[in-house]
């Protein structure tokens, strides 16, 4: 059942710009990008700096910690991969590195999730080569 669910959830469509990010996720490491030219730290990954379009970028390994910026407990979603797993928590997590990313909160009851709750990254292996970054309460 769990295996079937994982296969049916939309699998991220990795492209040339995002490949290093997803390769790191597969190793259970979370990276964001930083522009060497202007210092901008950004998410989601791309091949150029979204401030100045330069391509002088570096990958920054994240601490994996952050806090919940906002969330919603979803009780209704007809799509395969989600309708079997209601309710689930979708959230924006603000990473210690300063950027916000859309994710899921796992490892606790949906009703326990709060804004500003400290969380840390966990990885859900959706295929042998691909893992998606989700977050759980720190210490859980």
């Amino acid at each position, binding site marked *: 059942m769990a295996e079937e669910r994982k296969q049916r959830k939309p699998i991220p469509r990795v*492209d040339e710009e995002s490949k290093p990010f997803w390769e790191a996720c597969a190793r259970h490491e979370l990276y964001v990008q930083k522009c060497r030219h202007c210092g901008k730290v950004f*998410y*989601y990954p791309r091949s150029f700096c979204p401030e100045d379009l330069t391509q002088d970028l570096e990958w920054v390994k994240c601490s994996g910690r952050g806090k919940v910026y906002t969330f919603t407990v979803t*009780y*209704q*979603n*007809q799509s395969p991969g989600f309708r079997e797993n209601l309710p689930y928590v*979708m959230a924006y997590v603000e990473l210690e590195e300063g*950027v916000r990313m859309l994710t*899921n909160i796992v490892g606790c009851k949906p009703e326990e999730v709060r804004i500003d709750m400290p969380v840390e990254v966990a990885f859900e292996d959706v295929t042998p080569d691909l893992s998606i970054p989700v977050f759980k309460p720190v210490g859980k």
Partner: protein
Amino acid sequence: MGITGKAAVVGVYEHPLRWAPHKTQYQLMAESARGALEDAGLSIKDVDGLFTSGVGPMGIVALAEHLNLNPDYLDSTSIGGSSFVAHTAHAAAAIAAGYCTVALIVYGSTWSSDRFAIGTGGGAGSDPPDQFEACFGPTTVGDYALVAQRHMHEFGTTSEQLAEIAVTMRRHASLNPFAKFRDPITVEDVLASRIVSSPLHLLDCCMISDGGGAVVVTSAERARDLKKKPVYILGAAEACYHTSAGCRDLTDAAAKQSGPKALARAGVTHKDIDMAMIYDSFTITVLVTLESLGFCQKGEGGAFVQHGRIGLGGELPINTDGGGLSSNHPGMRGIFLVIEATKQLRGECGERQVKDCRLALCHGTGGTLGLRHSGATLVLGV
């Protein structure tokens, strides 16, 4: 420079159907086009500018073919539900530039009878951000719920305050014979309805209906000789907000950028506006839009929508037709904002007429507030 007063809305038509399993999308468009042209006293052969959205990539050409038109000007800007508000401004600009003289803006949809799960469906697209989102289960309701949750956290906004918006829209719908939901509801009813995606309840969400509508715009000069009182296009602006490379403030909407520009271009201020049509995909959409437009301070939207202020007879009546929450929402609702505002400015709204209505503001929101959305503001006046 500018479009102020150079073009006018001269014909509008809202298709009365909310459920049309026996009609096609293009049929609803054709019927709506006929209605708006009759309203203006013009014929289909007068149309030389065509505007639509909600069709396929070449859908506007198919629409021209279906209507047997050979327009000089085509615009199928697709920025979500706000598209038709933007089209109205684009039509005014095209007319002011002399690129067309009679613009037909038209929309039709059978999304309800086609059973599209637009609010609670998902699925992956192929735009760059989709790979960082679709796997986490975003839904339209969920994306807006993210904004509602944050707004409550930062400003103490309550579910009761959001519910007040739904209750007000329903009260307005009860005065609109074509509205889909006309039975009054209470704040308690909204709070007792099931949670679709917290903190949004079922009654915080717009419906999905079928429907269609059309708007005819022409030059101010030509408008003077037509059937109905011209409703002048005074100012407009567009904007889009997105994840801003990971730094977006979710409680701001694109209206913050487009609203003040549209008002300035029209040469008016907030207090001059007699009524507003604010895209109400969800109750939170209205609250955040009113704040972002500047009708109240950020964070004060909850208090602003209470005590009848946004109802008929209040300081700023909004969505007098009942909105997407209670009248109709066939996937995209922007065209109905322009239609209802026009009827109000002409004084054609009967029981739900706003007294001495001379200036109206429409603001469309397309996409989702929580991920990415467009905003289109339009100021109309007589």
